[in-house]
Protein backbone atom coordinates (compact mmCIF):
# COMPACT_ATOMS: atom_id res chain seq x y z
CA UNK A 1 0.00 0.00 0.00
CA UNK A 2 1.00 3.57 -0.60
CA UNK A 3 2.52 5.37 2.35
CA UNK A 4 3.14 9.05 2.90
CA UNK A 5 6.77 9.98 3.50
CA UNK A 6 7.63 11.69 6.76
CA UNK A 7 10.74 13.20 8.31
CA UNK A 8 11.34 13.40 12.04
CA UNK A 9 13.43 16.34 13.23
CA UNK A 10 14.90 15.82 16.69
CA UNK A 11 16.46 12.63 17.98
CA UNK A 12 15.69 12.98 21.71
CA UNK A 13 13.17 10.97 23.75
CA UNK A 14 10.12 12.34 21.90
CA UNK A 15 11.54 11.99 18.40
CA UNK A 16 12.81 8.46 18.97
CA UNK A 17 9.56 7.24 20.54
CA UNK A 18 7.67 8.79 17.63
CA UNK A 19 9.94 7.01 15.16
CA UNK A 20 8.99 3.63 16.60
CA UNK A 21 5.31 4.50 16.37
CA UNK A 22 5.64 5.71 12.77
CA UNK A 23 7.38 2.50 11.70
CA UNK A 24 4.23 0.60 12.76
CA UNK A 25 1.84 2.85 10.83
CA UNK A 26 0.27 1.47 7.65
CA UNK A 27 -0.10 5.01 6.32
CA UNK A 28 3.30 6.55 7.05
CA UNK A 29 6.87 5.82 6.16
CA UNK A 30 9.74 7.47 8.04
CA UNK A 31 12.06 8.40 5.21
CA UNK A 32 14.64 10.19 7.34
CA UNK A 33 15.35 10.62 11.02
CA UNK A 34 17.30 13.80 11.69
CA UNK A 35 19.36 14.73 14.72
CA UNK A 36 22.56 16.64 15.35
CA UNK A 37 24.85 13.94 16.61
CA UNK A 38 25.37 10.67 14.73
CA UNK A 39 26.39 8.94 17.96
CA UNK A 40 23.23 9.86 19.92
CA UNK A 41 21.10 7.02 21.29
CA UNK A 42 18.17 8.15 19.11
CA UNK A 43 20.19 7.98 15.87
CA UNK A 44 21.56 4.58 16.89
CA UNK A 45 18.02 3.35 17.44
CA UNK A 46 16.95 4.62 14.00
CA UNK A 47 19.86 2.80 12.37
CA UNK A 48 18.91 -0.40 14.13
CA UNK A 49 15.46 0.01 12.53
CA UNK A 50 17.07 0.54 9.11
CA UNK A 51 15.81 4.09 8.90
CA UNK A 52 17.95 6.59 7.05
CA UNK A 53 19.55 9.12 9.42
CA UNK A 54 21.15 12.53 9.17
CA UNK A 55 22.96 14.82 11.60
CA UNK A 56 22.41 17.94 9.49
CA UNK A 57 19.27 19.26 11.20
CA UNK A 58 16.81 21.30 9.13
CA UNK A 59 19.47 21.73 6.40
CA UNK A 60 18.84 18.12 5.34
CA UNK A 61 15.23 18.88 4.44
CA UNK A 62 16.24 22.08 2.66
CA UNK A 63 18.74 20.13 0.56
CA UNK A 64 16.39 17.17 -0.02
CA UNK A 65 12.95 18.76 -0.23
CA UNK A 66 11.43 15.64 -1.81
CA UNK A 67 12.32 13.54 1.23
CA UNK A 68 8.95 14.02 2.92
CA UNK A 69 5.49 15.54 2.88
CA UNK A 70 5.05 15.57 6.64
CA UNK A 71 7.63 16.91 9.10
CA UNK A 72 7.40 16.13 12.79
CA UNK A 73 9.41 18.70 14.74
CA UNK A 74 10.54 17.23 18.06
CA UNK A 75 13.42 19.63 18.73
CA UNK A 76 12.78 22.59 21.05
CA UNK A 77 10.57 25.66 21.09
CA UNK A 78 13.46 27.94 20.12
CA UNK A 79 14.54 25.67 17.28
CA UNK A 80 11.00 25.43 15.94
CA UNK A 81 10.80 29.24 15.73
CA UNK A 82 13.62 28.94 13.24
CA UNK A 83 12.26 25.84 11.44
CA UNK A 84 8.67 27.02 10.96
CA UNK A 85 9.24 29.66 8.22
CA UNK A 86 11.63 27.34 6.32
CA UNK A 87 9.14 24.46 6.36
CA UNK A 88 6.37 26.83 5.30
CA UNK A 89 8.34 27.85 2.22
CA UNK A 90 8.87 24.16 1.44
CA UNK A 91 5.10 23.63 1.80
CA UNK A 92 5.38 20.79 4.31
CA UNK A 93 2.58 19.62 6.61
CA UNK A 94 4.27 20.41 9.93
CA UNK A 95 3.38 18.71 13.21
CA UNK A 96 5.14 20.63 15.96
CA UNK A 97 5.76 18.70 19.18
CA UNK A 98 7.55 21.57 20.91
CA UNK A 99 5.67 24.17 22.95
CA UNK A 100 6.47 26.87 20.34
CA UNK A 101 2.72 27.42 19.72
CA UNK A 102 3.16 28.94 16.27
CA UNK A 103 0.42 26.91 14.61
CA UNK A 104 -3.14 25.92 15.57
CA UNK A 105 -3.32 24.11 18.93
CA UNK A 106 -4.42 20.53 18.37
CA UNK A 107 -6.04 17.93 20.58
CA UNK A 108 -7.24 15.28 18.11
CA UNK A 109 -10.30 14.20 20.06
CA UNK A 110 -11.52 17.82 20.15
CA UNK A 111 -10.50 19.58 16.93
CA UNK A 112 -8.77 17.29 14.42
CA UNK A 113 -10.98 18.43 11.54
CA UNK A 114 -9.97 22.08 11.95
CA UNK A 115 -6.32 21.10 12.20
CA UNK A 116 -6.36 19.22 8.89
CA UNK A 117 -7.07 22.51 7.13
CA UNK A 118 -3.82 24.04 8.41
CA UNK A 119 -0.16 23.46 7.52
CA UNK A 120 1.48 24.05 10.92
CA UNK A 121 -0.13 22.27 13.83
CA UNK A 122 1.04 22.49 17.41
CA UNK A 123 0.56 19.49 19.69
CA UNK A 124 0.65 21.70 22.83
CA UNK A 125 2.32 19.65 25.60
CA UNK A 126 1.97 16.21 27.16
CA UNK A 127 0.02 17.76 30.04
CA UNK A 128 -2.12 19.64 27.52
CA UNK A 129 -3.01 16.43 25.64
CA UNK A 130 -4.07 14.84 28.93
CA UNK A 131 -5.90 17.80 30.46
CA UNK A 132 -7.60 19.59 27.54
CA UNK A 133 -10.09 16.75 26.87
CA UNK A 134 -11.19 16.92 30.53
CA UNK A 135 -11.38 20.71 30.30
CA UNK A 136 -13.40 20.32 27.09
CA UNK A 137 -15.84 18.00 28.87
CA UNK A 138 -16.13 20.62 31.59
CA UNK A 139 -16.84 23.35 29.04
CA UNK A 140 -19.49 21.16 27.32
CA UNK A 141 -21.35 20.66 30.61
CA UNK A 142 -20.95 24.11 32.20
CA UNK A 143 -21.80 27.55 30.87
CA UNK A 144 -19.01 29.43 32.50
CA UNK A 145 -15.71 28.31 33.95
CA UNK A 146 -14.17 30.73 36.41
CA UNK A 147 -10.88 28.95 36.83
CA UNK A 148 -9.19 25.84 35.52
CA UNK A 149 -5.86 24.40 36.56
CA UNK A 150 -3.87 21.36 35.57
CA UNK A 151 -0.98 19.61 37.29
CA UNK A 152 1.10 16.98 35.55
CA UNK A 153 3.45 14.70 37.44
CA UNK A 154 5.98 12.92 35.27
CA UNK A 155 8.96 10.65 35.87
CA UNK A 156 12.27 12.53 35.84
CA UNK A 157 13.74 9.90 33.53
CA UNK A 158 11.14 10.73 30.88
CA UNK A 159 12.01 14.46 30.79
CA UNK A 160 14.91 15.07 28.42
CA UNK A 161 17.07 18.15 28.06
CA UNK A 162 14.72 20.12 25.78
CA UNK A 163 11.73 19.46 28.06
CA UNK A 164 13.73 20.81 31.00
CA UNK A 165 15.01 23.89 29.20
CA UNK A 166 11.47 24.56 27.92
CA UNK A 167 9.74 24.28 31.29
CA UNK A 168 8.47 27.89 31.12
CA UNK A 169 7.19 27.40 27.57
CA UNK A 170 5.49 24.19 28.73
CA UNK A 171 3.55 26.20 31.31
CA UNK A 172 2.66 29.10 29.00
CA UNK A 173 1.53 26.81 26.16
CA UNK A 174 -0.54 24.54 28.41
CA UNK A 175 -2.22 27.55 30.01
CA UNK A 176 -2.94 29.09 26.59
CA UNK A 177 -4.48 25.81 25.39
CA UNK A 178 -6.74 25.49 28.44
CA UNK A 179 -7.92 29.02 27.83
CA UNK A 180 -8.51 28.70 24.09
CA UNK A 181 -10.36 25.36 24.36
CA UNK A 182 -12.63 26.35 27.28
CA UNK A 183 -12.85 30.13 27.45
CA UNK A 184 -12.05 29.91 31.18
CA UNK A 185 -11.31 33.28 32.74
CA UNK A 186 -8.15 32.14 34.51
CA UNK A 187 -5.99 29.13 33.68
CA UNK A 188 -2.94 27.72 35.42
CA UNK A 189 -0.52 24.90 34.62
CA UNK A 190 1.99 23.20 36.91
CA UNK A 191 4.62 20.58 36.10
CA UNK A 192 6.30 18.33 38.67
CA UNK A 193 9.19 15.99 37.91
CA UNK A 194 9.41 13.02 40.26
CA UNK A 195 12.63 10.97 40.37
CA UNK A 196 11.19 7.97 42.28
CA UNK A 197 12.46 4.52 41.29
CA UNK A 198 10.71 2.55 39.93
CA UNK A 199 9.56 5.48 37.77
CA UNK A 200 6.10 6.90 38.34
CA UNK A 201 3.49 6.74 35.58
CA UNK A 202 2.45 10.08 34.14
CA UNK A 203 -0.51 11.52 36.03
CA UNK A 204 -2.51 14.64 35.30
CA UNK A 205 -4.99 16.35 37.59
CA UNK A 206 -7.54 18.95 36.56
CA UNK A 207 -8.97 21.29 39.18
CA UNK A 208 -11.72 23.77 38.36
CA UNK A 209 -14.01 26.35 39.87
CA UNK A 210 -17.46 26.79 38.28
CA UNK A 211 -20.69 28.40 39.43
CA UNK A 212 -23.05 25.41 39.59
CA UNK A 213 -21.07 22.18 39.34
CA UNK A 214 -22.91 19.42 37.43
CA UNK A 215 -20.91 16.45 38.64
CA UNK A 216 -23.14 13.71 37.20
CA UNK A 217 -23.21 15.30 33.75
CA UNK A 218 -19.47 15.84 33.96
CA UNK A 219 -18.85 12.19 34.88
CA UNK A 220 -20.69 11.09 31.75
CA UNK A 221 -18.91 13.60 29.55
CA UNK A 222 -15.48 12.68 30.95
CA UNK A 223 -16.21 8.96 30.61
CA UNK A 224 -17.29 9.40 26.99
CA UNK A 225 -14.30 11.50 25.96
CA UNK A 226 -11.87 9.15 27.73
CA UNK A 227 -13.24 6.28 25.63
CA UNK A 228 -12.60 8.26 22.46
CA UNK A 229 -9.05 9.13 23.54
CA UNK A 230 -8.35 5.47 24.28
CA UNK A 231 -8.74 4.81 20.55
CA UNK A 232 -5.47 6.62 19.93
CA UNK A 233 -3.90 6.59 23.44
CA UNK A 234 -4.70 3.10 24.76
CA UNK A 235 -3.15 3.79 28.19
CA UNK A 236 -5.35 6.81 29.05
CA UNK A 237 -7.39 6.07 32.20
CA UNK A 238 -9.51 8.10 34.62
CA UNK A 239 -8.24 7.20 38.10
CA UNK A 240 -10.27 9.67 40.17
CA UNK A 241 -13.61 10.44 38.50
CA UNK A 242 -15.03 13.98 38.74
CA UNK A 243 -15.81 14.90 42.34
CA UNK A 244 -15.88 17.95 44.55
CA UNK A 245 -13.16 18.28 47.17
CA UNK A 246 -12.67 21.40 49.26
CA UNK A 247 -14.95 23.46 47.02
CA UNK A 248 -13.09 22.58 43.83
CA UNK A 249 -13.85 20.11 41.05
CA UNK A 250 -11.15 17.48 40.73
CA UNK A 251 -10.51 14.84 38.04
CA UNK A 252 -7.37 12.71 37.77
CA UNK A 253 -6.04 10.67 34.86
CA UNK A 254 -3.11 8.35 34.48
CA UNK A 255 -1.39 7.66 31.17
CA UNK A 256 0.39 4.37 30.78
CA UNK A 257 2.66 4.43 27.75
CA UNK A 258 3.01 1.74 25.10
CA UNK A 259 6.61 1.24 26.20
CA UNK A 260 8.03 1.93 22.73
CA UNK A 261 11.27 3.83 23.41
CA UNK A 262 11.08 4.48 27.13
CA UNK A 263 9.21 2.03 29.37
CA UNK A 264 5.48 2.21 30.16
CA UNK A 265 5.84 4.91 32.81
CA UNK A 266 6.60 7.51 30.13
CA UNK A 267 2.94 8.17 29.35
CA UNK A 268 3.93 11.78 28.71
CA UNK A 269 5.90 10.77 25.60
CA UNK A 270 3.16 8.42 24.57
CA UNK A 271 0.22 10.78 24.77
CA UNK A 272 1.74 13.60 22.72
CA UNK A 273 3.20 11.17 20.18
CA UNK A 274 -0.02 9.16 19.84
CA UNK A 275 -1.86 12.44 19.27
CA UNK A 276 0.70 13.53 16.65
CA UNK A 277 0.46 10.14 14.97
CA UNK A 278 -3.36 10.24 14.88
CA UNK A 279 -3.15 13.63 13.17
CA UNK A 280 -0.48 12.52 10.69
CA UNK A 281 -2.44 9.40 9.77
CA UNK A 282 -5.62 11.40 9.25
CA UNK A 283 -3.69 13.76 6.97
CA UNK A 284 -2.08 10.85 5.12
CA UNK A 285 -5.48 9.31 4.44
CA UNK A 286 -6.77 12.52 2.89
CA UNK A 287 -3.72 12.44 0.60
CA UNK A 288 -3.58 8.75 -0.19
CA UNK A 289 -7.30 8.01 -0.74
CA UNK A 290 -8.42 5.67 2.00
CA UNK A 291 -8.30 1.96 1.10
CA UNK A 292 -11.94 1.47 2.05
CA UNK A 293 -14.89 3.56 3.13
CA UNK A 294 -14.68 4.56 6.75
CA UNK A 295 -16.70 6.80 8.96
CA UNK A 296 -15.18 10.20 9.63
CA UNK A 297 -14.33 9.62 13.27
CA UNK A 298 -12.77 6.26 12.54
CA UNK A 299 -10.46 7.93 10.07
CA UNK A 300 -9.38 10.21 12.86
CA UNK A 301 -8.67 7.66 15.50
CA UNK A 302 -7.58 4.48 13.76
CA UNK A 303 -4.51 2.87 15.29
Amino acid at each position, binding site marked *: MNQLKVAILGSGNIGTDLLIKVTRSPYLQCNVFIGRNLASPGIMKARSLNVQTSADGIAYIVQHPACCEIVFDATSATAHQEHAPILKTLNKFVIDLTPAKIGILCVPVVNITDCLKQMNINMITCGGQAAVPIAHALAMTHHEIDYIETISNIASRSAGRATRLNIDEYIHTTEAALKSFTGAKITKAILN*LNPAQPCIHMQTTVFAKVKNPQIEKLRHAVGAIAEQIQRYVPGYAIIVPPMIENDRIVVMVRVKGLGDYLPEYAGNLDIINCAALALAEAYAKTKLHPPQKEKAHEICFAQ
Partner: protein
Amino acid sequence: MKSVLLSDPTLRDGNHAVSHLLTTEQIAAYCQAIDQTGMPIVEIGHGNGLGASSLQLGLSKTADFTALKVARDHLKKSKLGVHVIPGFATIEKNLKPAIDLGIDVVRVASHCSEADITEQHIKYARTAGKIVYGVLMMSHMVSPAVLVEEAIKMQSYGAEGIIFMDSAGHYLPEDITKRVTMLVQSLSISVGFHAHNNLGMAIANSIAAVAAGANMLDGCARGFGAGAGNAQLEVLVGVLKRMGYETGIDFYKLLDAADLAESAIIKEMPTISSASIVSGLSGVFSGFMKPVLRISKEFNVDSRDVFFELGKRKIVAGQEDIIIEVAHNLAKRNQTDIK
Protein backbone atom coordinates in the same frame (compact mmCIF):
# COMPACT_ATOMS: atom_id res chain seq x y z
CA MET B 1 35.11 35.25 64.58
CA LYS B 2 33.21 33.02 62.10
CA SER B 3 30.07 34.58 60.72
CA VAL B 4 26.79 33.12 59.53
CA LEU B 5 24.49 34.74 56.97
CA LEU B 6 20.88 34.40 58.11
CA SER B 7 17.75 34.36 55.96
CA ASP B 8 14.30 34.76 57.47
CA PRO B 9 11.48 33.03 55.54
CA THR B 10 8.84 33.62 58.27
CA LEU B 11 6.58 35.34 55.72
CA ARG B 12 7.14 32.62 53.10
CA ASP B 13 7.42 29.24 54.86
CA GLY B 14 5.03 30.51 57.55
CA ASN B 15 2.41 30.96 54.85
CA HIS B 16 2.08 27.14 54.76
CA ALA B 17 0.97 27.23 58.40
CA VAL B 18 -1.92 29.60 57.64
CA SER B 19 -2.89 28.05 54.27
CA HIS B 20 -1.24 30.97 52.43
CA LEU B 21 -3.58 33.54 53.96
CA LEU B 22 -1.05 36.10 55.26
CA THR B 23 -2.44 39.63 54.87
CA THR B 24 -0.77 42.83 53.73
CA GLU B 25 -1.07 44.21 57.29
CA GLN B 26 0.78 41.21 58.72
CA ILE B 27 3.48 41.46 56.07
CA ALA B 28 3.91 45.18 56.73
CA ALA B 29 4.08 44.78 60.51
CA TYR B 30 6.61 41.95 60.50
CA CYS B 31 8.80 43.57 57.83
CA GLN B 32 8.93 46.77 59.85
CA ALA B 33 9.96 44.85 62.99
CA ILE B 34 12.49 42.53 61.37
CA ASP B 35 14.09 45.36 59.38
CA GLN B 36 15.19 46.88 62.72
CA THR B 37 17.13 43.76 63.71
CA GLY B 38 19.74 43.79 60.97
CA MET B 39 18.36 40.57 59.43
CA PRO B 40 20.31 40.21 56.16
CA ILE B 41 17.58 38.59 54.00
CA VAL B 42 13.79 38.46 54.40
CA GLU B 43 11.84 36.12 52.16
CA ILE B 44 8.26 36.87 51.16
CA GLY B 45 5.50 35.01 49.36
CA HIS B 46 3.34 31.95 48.96
CA GLY B 47 4.73 28.95 50.85
CA ASN B 48 5.90 27.41 47.57
CA GLY B 49 7.19 30.71 46.24
CA LEU B 50 6.38 32.96 43.31
CA GLY B 51 3.57 31.81 41.03
CA ALA B 52 2.55 28.99 43.37
CA SER B 53 -0.85 30.35 44.32
CA SER B 54 -3.11 27.61 42.96
CA LEU B 55 -5.91 25.18 43.72
CA GLN B 56 -3.18 22.56 43.97
CA LEU B 57 -1.36 24.26 46.87
CA GLY B 58 -3.80 26.87 48.10
CA LEU B 59 -4.63 30.30 46.74
CA SER B 60 -2.71 33.22 48.27
CA LYS B 61 -4.80 35.77 50.08
CA THR B 62 -2.25 38.42 49.10
CA ALA B 63 -1.08 38.28 45.49
CA ASP B 64 2.68 37.94 44.94
CA PHE B 65 2.99 41.39 43.48
CA THR B 66 1.08 43.09 46.32
CA ALA B 67 3.01 41.20 49.00
CA LEU B 68 6.35 42.11 47.47
CA LYS B 69 5.37 45.74 47.09
CA VAL B 70 4.33 46.00 50.75
CA ALA B 71 7.55 44.28 51.83
CA ARG B 72 9.63 46.53 49.60
CA ASP B 73 8.06 49.59 51.20
CA HIS B 74 8.90 48.35 54.71
CA LEU B 75 12.35 46.81 54.26
CA LYS B 76 15.00 49.52 54.30
CA LYS B 77 18.09 47.61 55.42
CA SER B 78 17.19 43.94 54.97
CA LYS B 79 17.38 42.50 51.48
CA LEU B 80 14.09 41.32 49.98
CA GLY B 81 14.16 37.73 48.75
CA VAL B 82 11.87 35.41 46.80
CA HIS B 83 11.64 31.63 46.40
CA VAL B 84 11.19 30.48 42.80
CA ILE B 85 10.37 26.91 41.75
CA PRO B 86 10.48 26.29 37.97
CA GLY B 87 7.37 24.29 37.10
CA PHE B 88 5.29 26.75 39.14
CA ALA B 89 6.88 30.13 38.42
CA THR B 90 8.03 31.25 34.98
CA ILE B 91 10.48 34.00 34.13
CA GLU B 92 8.00 35.94 32.04
CA LYS B 93 4.98 35.71 34.34
CA ASN B 94 6.60 35.83 37.76
CA LEU B 95 10.34 36.39 38.00
CA LYS B 96 10.68 39.35 35.66
CA PRO B 97 7.84 41.33 37.30
CA ALA B 98 9.37 40.64 40.74
CA ILE B 99 12.77 41.82 39.60
CA ASP B 100 11.23 44.91 38.01
CA LEU B 101 9.59 45.63 41.35
CA GLY B 102 12.95 45.73 43.07
CA ILE B 103 13.64 42.44 44.88
CA ASP B 104 17.28 41.83 45.85
CA VAL B 105 17.69 38.07 46.30
CA VAL B 106 16.40 35.23 44.14
CA ARG B 107 16.47 31.69 45.51
CA VAL B 108 15.80 29.29 42.64
CA ALA B 109 14.65 25.91 43.94
CA SER B 110 14.07 22.44 42.58
CA HIS B 111 13.52 18.98 43.95
CA CYS B 112 16.94 17.68 45.07
CA SER B 113 17.57 15.63 41.92
CA GLU B 114 16.23 18.08 39.30
CA ALA B 115 18.71 20.99 39.35
CA ASP B 116 18.77 21.26 35.57
CA ILE B 117 15.28 22.81 35.47
CA THR B 118 16.74 25.85 37.28
CA GLU B 119 19.28 26.79 34.61
CA GLN B 120 17.21 29.40 32.76
CA HIS B 121 15.93 31.02 35.94
CA ILE B 122 19.33 31.22 37.67
CA LYS B 123 20.95 32.68 34.57
CA TYR B 124 18.15 35.19 34.08
CA ALA B 125 18.33 36.47 37.64
CA ARG B 126 22.13 36.66 37.54
CA THR B 127 22.04 38.60 34.27
CA ALA B 128 19.55 40.98 35.91
CA GLY B 129 22.21 41.65 38.56
CA LYS B 130 20.46 39.94 41.47
CA ILE B 131 22.02 37.87 44.26
CA VAL B 132 21.13 34.30 43.29
CA TYR B 133 21.17 31.14 45.39
CA GLY B 134 20.28 27.63 44.32
CA VAL B 135 17.99 25.64 46.61
CA LEU B 136 17.73 21.84 46.66
CA MET B 137 14.49 20.77 48.34
CA MET B 138 13.56 17.45 49.96
CA SER B 139 17.27 16.70 50.04
CA HIS B 140 16.89 13.58 52.20
CA MET B 141 15.55 11.78 49.11
CA VAL B 142 18.94 11.51 47.39
CA SER B 143 22.36 10.27 48.45
CA PRO B 144 24.96 12.85 49.51
CA ALA B 145 26.86 12.14 46.26
CA VAL B 146 23.83 12.99 44.10
CA LEU B 147 23.17 16.09 46.21
CA VAL B 148 26.72 17.26 45.47
CA GLU B 149 26.29 16.60 41.72
CA GLU B 150 23.09 18.65 41.62
CA ALA B 151 24.67 21.46 43.66
CA ILE B 152 27.57 21.59 41.19
CA LYS B 153 25.08 22.01 38.33
CA MET B 154 23.50 25.01 40.07
CA GLN B 155 26.95 26.45 40.71
CA SER B 156 27.74 26.09 37.01
CA TYR B 157 24.56 28.04 36.10
CA GLY B 158 25.76 30.93 38.24
CA ALA B 159 24.32 30.33 41.73
CA GLU B 160 26.34 32.17 44.39
CA GLY B 161 25.46 29.74 47.15
CA ILE B 162 23.58 26.45 47.59
CA ILE B 163 20.99 25.95 50.32
CA PHE B 164 19.86 22.38 50.88
CA MET B 165 16.54 21.92 52.61
CA ASP B 166 15.33 19.31 55.04
CA SER B 167 11.81 19.90 53.71
CA ALA B 168 10.38 16.88 55.51
CA GLY B 169 12.24 17.38 58.80
CA HIS B 170 13.72 13.92 58.36
CA TYR B 171 17.43 14.45 59.09
CA LEU B 172 19.50 13.73 62.17
CA PRO B 173 22.65 15.79 62.88
CA GLU B 174 25.04 13.15 61.54
CA ASP B 175 23.20 13.27 58.16
CA ILE B 176 23.83 17.01 58.03
CA THR B 177 27.51 16.75 58.93
CA LYS B 178 28.10 14.29 56.12
CA ARG B 179 26.30 16.35 53.48
CA VAL B 180 27.75 19.73 54.45
CA THR B 181 31.27 18.33 54.58
CA MET B 182 30.93 16.92 51.07
CA LEU B 183 29.27 20.08 49.69
CA VAL B 184 31.92 22.37 51.17
CA GLN B 185 34.68 20.18 49.72
CA SER B 186 33.13 20.10 46.25
CA LEU B 187 31.83 23.66 45.79
CA SER B 188 33.59 26.97 45.47
CA ILE B 189 30.50 28.85 46.70
CA SER B 190 28.74 29.15 50.07
CA VAL B 191 26.69 26.31 51.55
CA GLY B 192 23.49 26.87 53.49
CA PHE B 193 20.91 24.77 55.32
CA HIS B 194 17.15 25.10 55.89
CA ALA B 195 15.75 23.01 58.73
CA HIS B 196 12.33 21.64 59.69
CA ASN B 197 11.50 20.48 63.17
CA ASN B 198 9.40 17.34 62.73
CA LEU B 199 11.77 15.22 64.77
CA GLY B 200 12.84 18.01 67.12
CA MET B 201 16.17 18.40 65.33
CA ALA B 202 15.87 21.83 63.65
CA ILE B 203 18.33 23.70 65.91
CA ALA B 204 20.65 20.72 66.40
CA ASN B 205 20.79 20.14 62.63
CA SER B 206 21.43 23.84 61.94
CA ILE B 207 24.31 23.83 64.42
CA ALA B 208 25.70 20.65 62.86
CA ALA B 209 25.60 22.44 59.49
CA VAL B 210 27.67 25.44 60.59
CA ALA B 211 30.06 23.21 62.55
CA ALA B 212 30.73 21.30 59.31
CA GLY B 213 31.39 24.50 57.36
CA ALA B 214 28.02 25.86 56.17
CA ASN B 215 27.79 29.64 56.42
CA MET B 216 24.13 30.32 55.62
CA LEU B 217 21.12 29.31 57.73
CA ASP B 218 17.36 29.84 57.58
CA GLY B 219 15.16 30.40 60.59
CA CYS B 220 11.61 31.60 61.25
CA ALA B 221 10.15 33.60 64.12
CA ARG B 222 8.83 31.10 66.69
CA GLY B 223 9.64 28.47 64.05
CA PHE B 224 6.55 29.60 62.06
CA GLY B 225 6.62 27.38 58.98
CA ALA B 226 5.23 24.31 57.26
CA GLY B 227 4.31 21.27 59.36
CA ALA B 228 6.12 21.22 62.70
CA GLY B 229 7.79 24.47 61.71
CA ASN B 230 11.36 25.55 60.97
CA ALA B 231 14.40 26.29 63.11
CA GLN B 232 13.16 28.87 65.60
CA LEU B 233 15.01 31.99 64.55
CA GLU B 234 15.45 33.66 67.93
CA VAL B 235 16.68 30.40 69.48
CA LEU B 236 19.04 29.89 66.57
CA VAL B 237 20.51 33.39 66.91
CA GLY B 238 20.89 32.94 70.68
CA VAL B 239 22.65 29.60 70.28
CA LEU B 240 24.93 30.89 67.50
CA LYS B 241 25.84 33.84 69.72
CA ARG B 242 26.67 31.55 72.61
CA MET B 243 28.81 29.40 70.31
CA GLY B 244 30.71 32.48 69.19
CA TYR B 245 29.32 32.96 65.67
CA GLU B 246 28.71 36.47 64.37
CA THR B 247 25.25 37.08 62.81
CA GLY B 248 25.06 40.88 62.90
CA ILE B 249 21.60 40.63 64.50
CA ASP B 250 20.40 42.90 67.33
CA PHE B 251 19.20 40.17 69.70
CA TYR B 252 16.68 42.20 71.76
CA LYS B 253 15.10 43.60 68.61
CA LEU B 254 14.88 40.08 67.20
CA LEU B 255 13.08 38.93 70.36
CA ASP B 256 10.68 41.86 69.90
CA ALA B 257 10.04 40.87 66.27
CA ALA B 258 9.34 37.28 67.35
CA ASP B 259 6.90 38.51 70.02
CA LEU B 260 5.17 40.59 67.37
CA ALA B 261 4.96 37.56 65.07
CA GLU B 262 3.37 35.55 67.88
CA SER B 263 0.72 38.19 68.59
CA ALA B 264 0.00 39.47 65.07
CA ILE B 265 0.61 36.59 62.67
CA ILE B 266 0.77 33.13 64.18
CA LYS B 267 -2.65 31.59 64.71
CA GLU B 268 -1.41 28.30 66.11
CA MET B 269 2.07 28.04 67.59
CA PRO B 270 4.12 25.50 65.65
CA THR B 271 4.23 22.25 67.55
CA ILE B 272 5.44 18.74 66.88
CA SER B 273 2.01 17.15 66.54
CA SER B 274 1.52 13.41 66.18
CA ALA B 275 0.96 13.97 62.47
CA SER B 276 4.25 15.96 62.21
CA ILE B 277 6.20 13.05 63.64
CA VAL B 278 4.64 10.65 61.14
CA SER B 279 5.28 13.16 58.35
CA GLY B 280 8.95 13.48 59.35
CA LEU B 281 9.50 9.75 59.70
CA SER B 282 7.79 8.99 56.38
CA GLY B 283 9.84 11.72 54.68
CA VAL B 284 6.84 13.62 53.30
CA PHE B 285 7.09 17.36 52.54
CA SER B 286 6.10 19.44 55.61
CA GLY B 287 3.76 21.56 53.49
CA PHE B 288 1.52 18.50 53.09
CA MET B 289 0.42 18.69 56.73
CA LYS B 290 -2.73 20.76 56.35
CA PRO B 291 -4.04 19.21 53.12
CA VAL B 292 -3.36 15.65 54.35
CA LEU B 293 -5.30 16.25 57.57
CA ARG B 294 -8.22 17.87 55.70
CA ILE B 295 -8.45 15.31 52.89
CA SER B 296 -8.05 12.34 55.26
CA LYS B 297 -10.99 13.64 57.27
CA GLU B 298 -13.12 14.14 54.14
CA PHE B 299 -12.45 10.61 52.89
CA ASN B 300 -12.69 9.16 56.41
CA VAL B 301 -9.25 7.54 56.32
CA ASP B 302 -6.37 7.56 58.83
CA SER B 303 -4.02 10.46 58.04
CA ARG B 304 -1.08 8.35 59.26
CA ASP B 305 -1.81 5.76 56.58
CA VAL B 306 -1.95 8.57 54.02
CA PHE B 307 1.47 9.93 55.12
CA PHE B 308 3.14 6.53 55.03
CA GLU B 309 1.63 5.73 51.61
CA LEU B 310 2.82 9.11 50.24
CA GLY B 311 6.28 8.39 51.68
CA LYS B 312 6.31 4.94 50.10
CA ARG B 313 5.42 6.43 46.71
CA LYS B 314 8.22 9.01 47.13
CA ILE B 315 5.91 11.91 46.42
CA VAL B 316 7.74 15.26 46.16
CA ALA B 317 6.78 18.82 47.14
CA GLY B 318 4.26 20.17 44.65
CA GLN B 319 2.44 16.85 44.17
CA GLU B 320 -0.35 17.69 46.63
CA ASP B 321 -2.97 16.38 44.17
CA ILE B 322 -1.74 12.84 44.85
CA ILE B 323 -3.07 13.14 48.43
CA ILE B 324 -6.59 12.96 46.94
CA GLU B 325 -5.75 9.87 44.90
CA VAL B 326 -4.16 8.13 47.90
CA ALA B 327 -7.10 8.97 50.19
CA HIS B 328 -9.57 7.93 47.47
CA ASN B 329 -7.83 4.56 47.07
CA LEU B 330 -7.55 3.97 50.83
CA ALA B 331 -11.26 4.75 51.23
CA LYS B 332 -12.11 2.29 48.43
CA ARG B 333 -9.89 -0.37 50.00
CA ASN B 334 -11.49 0.17 53.42
CA GLN B 335 -14.92 -0.21 51.87
CA THR B 336 -13.93 -3.49 50.21
CA ASP B 337 -12.53 -4.74 53.51
CA ILE B 338 -15.85 -4.05 55.24
CA LYS B 339 -17.76 -5.93 52.53
